[in-house]
């Protein structure tokens, strides 16, 4: 008797913690009210609607990222086909124009055999694609989305930057565990690319932080009466080029060049592990797009929608991220691939000077505003 009473008291304590920071969506409030009266279900509902869990698991977290991945692959193939005078995938569900093509591909990967070759270090070979979800989801804790947030401090943007720069380590580790010639060459190239883009990337973000005089994303978004891209276009240009290098997109997809090193670090993967591994650059692109929307395009600003309440800013951020990703995916059809030493020269020459100029422009803005 006393045990059940203890459990109920424990549940009450947990429920009160969750209820303190629940997301408020007037659209589904009546259902939520109804469910709050049922004893065990109300804990689960309050848990799901608790702001950090909603942010990391549902939107813009795991489920939101999965939907974006399914969409962006299809969209990239369609837009590349449109530029190349042909029609992209359209047969899988013919009436809707083949929208579920990415889902069909994923299901096909599920049915293929995962081959672990004799020379590979089997433990790390299989584990690293799964562990690589860690550095992808961790920065999501720090990047807020207006209505929802993971951890709320004033140092979130530098923290997110530090965590995003962990991802190349995992890619190098995957190539190393594969123990094959082309994987080795690909890993070495990935390590070189890491040196090319990291400094200009940090400098461009620092330029924007200097412009807004704060590193708190909520204040940054509040200060953007005109989008950040117009306030400091040089920083936007430098940031855009480093986003292309960071996510291994053409013209800089040197580590995974199909014609030279036969996919680089990912060459020995097959089956569902291959599907997971191919998602990695797209997930990194998602994170960097969210960061760029917050810094340059007004984050979650937008007109109020009454019945959505706290969900409206999240949806604005989500849609703006998708639009930015679509524009970045167009770069694939315009350019050929640069060589490794040319990329290093570009990164430390042109892009570095662009970000230094951006820093000076920000300093100029700050001086003008202070006066």
């Amino acid at each position: 008797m006393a045990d059940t009473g203890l459990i109920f008291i424990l549940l009450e304590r947990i429920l009160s913690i969750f209820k303190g920071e629940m997301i408020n969506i007037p659209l589904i409030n009546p259902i939520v009210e109804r469910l709050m009266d049922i004893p065990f279900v109300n804990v689960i509902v309050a848990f799901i609607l608790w702001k950090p869990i909603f942010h990391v698991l549902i939107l813009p977290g795991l489920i939101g990222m999965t939907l974006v991945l399914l969409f962006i692959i299809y969209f990239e193939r369609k837009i590349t086909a449109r530029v190349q005078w042909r029609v992209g995938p359209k047969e899988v569900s013919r009436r809707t124009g083949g929208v579920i093509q990415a889902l069909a591909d994923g299901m096909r990967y599920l049915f293929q055999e995962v081959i672990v070759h004799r020379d590979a270090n089997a433990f790390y070979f299989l584990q690293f694609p799964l562990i690589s979800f860690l550095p992808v989801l961790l920065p999501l804790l720090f990047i807020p989305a207006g209505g929802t947030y993971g951890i709320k401090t004033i140092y979130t943007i530098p923290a997110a930057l530090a965590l995003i720069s962990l991802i190349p380590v995992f890619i190098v580790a995957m190539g190393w565990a594969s123990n094959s010639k082309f994987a080795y060459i690909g890993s070495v190239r990935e390590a070189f690319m890491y040196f090319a883009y990291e400094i200009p990337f940090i400098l461009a973000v620092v330029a924007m932080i200097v412009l807004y005089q704060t590193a708190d994303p909520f204040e940054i978004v509040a200060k953007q009466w005109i989008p950040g891209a117009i306030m400091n276009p040089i920083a936007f240009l430098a940031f855009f080029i480093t986003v292309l290098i960071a996510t291994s997109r053409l013209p800089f997809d040197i580590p995974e060049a199909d014609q030279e090193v036969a996919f680089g670090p990912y060459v020995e993967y097959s089956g569902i592990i291959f599907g997971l591994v191919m998602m990695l650059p797209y997930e990194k692109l998602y994170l960097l797009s969210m960061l760029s929307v917050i810094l340059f395009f007004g984050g979650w600003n937008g007109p109020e929608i009454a019945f959505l309440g706290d969900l409206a800013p999240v949806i604005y951020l989500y849609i703006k991220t998708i639009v930015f990703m679509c524009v970045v995916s167009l770069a694939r059809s315009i350019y050929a691939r640069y060589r490794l030493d040319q990329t290093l020269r570009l990164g430390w020459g042109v892009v570095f000077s662009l970000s230094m100029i951006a820093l000076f422009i920000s300093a100029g803005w700050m001086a003008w505003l202070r006066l």
Partner: protein
Amino acid sequence: MKEYSLDIQVTPPKEYESYFIPVPKEFLEDAYRSDDFVVFTGPQHGGSGHMRLIIRVKGDFIVEVIPDPGYVHRSIEKLAENRLYIQNIPLFERPSIIDFGNYNLGYVRAIEDALDIEVPERARYIRTILAELGRIGTHLYDAGILAVFLGHTTGFMWPFALREYIVEIFTRITGTRITGSYIVPGGVRRDVDEKTLDTIKRMLTALEFRIKKFERVFIKNPTTIARLKDVGTLTKEEAVDYGVVGPFLRACGIEYDVRVVEPYEAYDEIDWDVVIGEVGDGYTRFLVRVEEVAQSINMIRQLVDNLPEGDVLSSDIIAFDKKDIRGSFFEAYADIVLPEGEYTTLTEAARGTLLYSIISDGESTVPYRVRIVTPGWMYLKGFMEACKGHRLADLQAIYGSFGYFPPEADR
């Protein structure tokens, strides 16, 4: 940087036992003892075509490249010894499938030389039109392969779509898209009507319209220029020493074109320029071919405008209807016998000089020996030498700029 050598007994790894590798064991052991890396870019690779390249790499720089061609060898010369002279025409146009005009011309001109057959004017003009269309088609195909080796997928799809224009014209003239088997000793198989000639002229205008777009996206793209400029340079003396032919020789500054040195068909009756370059690097080789496409378009326009009237089949062969060989094919060609001797022709195919040599014993309806030397085989050595000292990523760029096509080189 100081280098220390270690004299340890090194055994090459398992890969030497499991594959058939056409290099001696000492080569691999030597590479393993020093700091080099041996990479097998084999036939199943995104960027190697149908041949294997064994690359010895020191860091990121190529020390040497050993080619392993022969994966597509179909023994065409041996097969030709068991077939009638006329049955070899579809056989010899298979190495380069869209350039069939030039490949047919070389063989058929050797037969006409032996039997002393005179070809009427109209047929010579039509044959030249086919040869030039094949040249444009091959240069577009090579541009597409160069683009895909550099990673530019749009630059791959657009030339192949433009090749579709050429293939449509081939369908209207010969009846099939590629490998037309249309040129026979004494002329061509059937006549071309007015509607098709009009379509050819309109197609050339449409082609120029889209090539301008292609130029802005791929040819003048800064990434392409950065990848190809000063890459794989061959000097004049090196090019002559290694036996490079065709537009790749002209890109090094040497003016040699078989159509000017020994003109055949209708080449000395129209007005055109030989395209040469000054620096023998990858970008110049590419630009020479782009300019040759413009020259070919100009040539076809002149040929279509000045096409003379007349028969398309010679009076030296048995043909009951001089405008269409249908119905008299067997009587004309089934039992031709060449007089004893050796007959050689040189043709300028799209990728270089093409040599045919027929040896006949004077009595049989099948040739005793046919020898064909394709341009790809002739410049393979120059291609391998141009790679030395460059980075690993440059190998694909040099491959694309040479336009090496294994089925043509292996015959």
